[in-house]
């Protein structure tokens, strides 16, 4: 399977702390994307990082990509209770007819306590 695998499966922190989630994958990729999902809702795109990029920022979010280790991390700084959600990484493989196809990991459930 080429889907990403997030680690940890669950993370519980206090408001103001940083949250780090990791994603590992198996095949070469075109890009890796992070999404957020509140309970029972659709997914919201956070950041897309392409295979030739190493780091991207968006507000309190920082994503890194290490293609040699086939891994990525998502850092949320100064977390808030409203950041409580499931976070998924998804990969688009670079082989075969995979253009536009995303394969999701199981996600990390983040809980931020006030």
């Amino acid at each position, binding site marked *: 399977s080429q889907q990403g695998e997030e680690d940890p499966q669950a993370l519980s922190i206090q408001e103001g702390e940083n949250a780090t989630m990791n994603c590992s994958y198996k095949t070469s990729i075109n890009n890796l994307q992070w999404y957020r999902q509140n309970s029972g809702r659709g997914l919201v795109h956070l950041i897309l990082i392409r295979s030739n990029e190493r780091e991207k920022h968006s507000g309190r979010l920082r994503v890194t990509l290490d293609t040699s280790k086939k891994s990525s991390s998502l850092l949320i700084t100064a977390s808030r209770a409203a950041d409580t959600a499931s976070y998924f990484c998804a990969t688009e493989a670079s082989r075969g007819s995979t253009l536009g196809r995303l394969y*999701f990991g199981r996600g990390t459930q983040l809980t931020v306590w006030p």
Partner: protein
Amino acid sequence: DAMVIQNPRYQVTQFGKPVTLSCSQTLNHNVMYWYQQKSSQAPKLLFHYYDKDFNNEADTPDNFQSRRPNTSFCFLDIRSPGLGDAAMYLCATSRIDGLMSSYEQYFGPGTRLTVT
């Protein structure tokens, strides 16, 4: 606001009774996707349309079919729902440009399907 709309938000059907879920978009994206997501699991890609070209995933059951009559609309048909098909069904859109680069996906709120 441009968005991805799914109807209905909640659908209850009987075992074996065909059901259709709908998705529409105002983003004018050339790619539309259907995912199945069961509780506490990853969204699983069922199929997608790149313009009018239909792309099925190898492990998508034959029970699931899709139609895309135009750019804006896409339908998911479940011919004979089983209890195992109860899940959240997510529609998403994206674009692939002329350089064959793909971009982020925009998701609808999902349709929660219950099979009784």
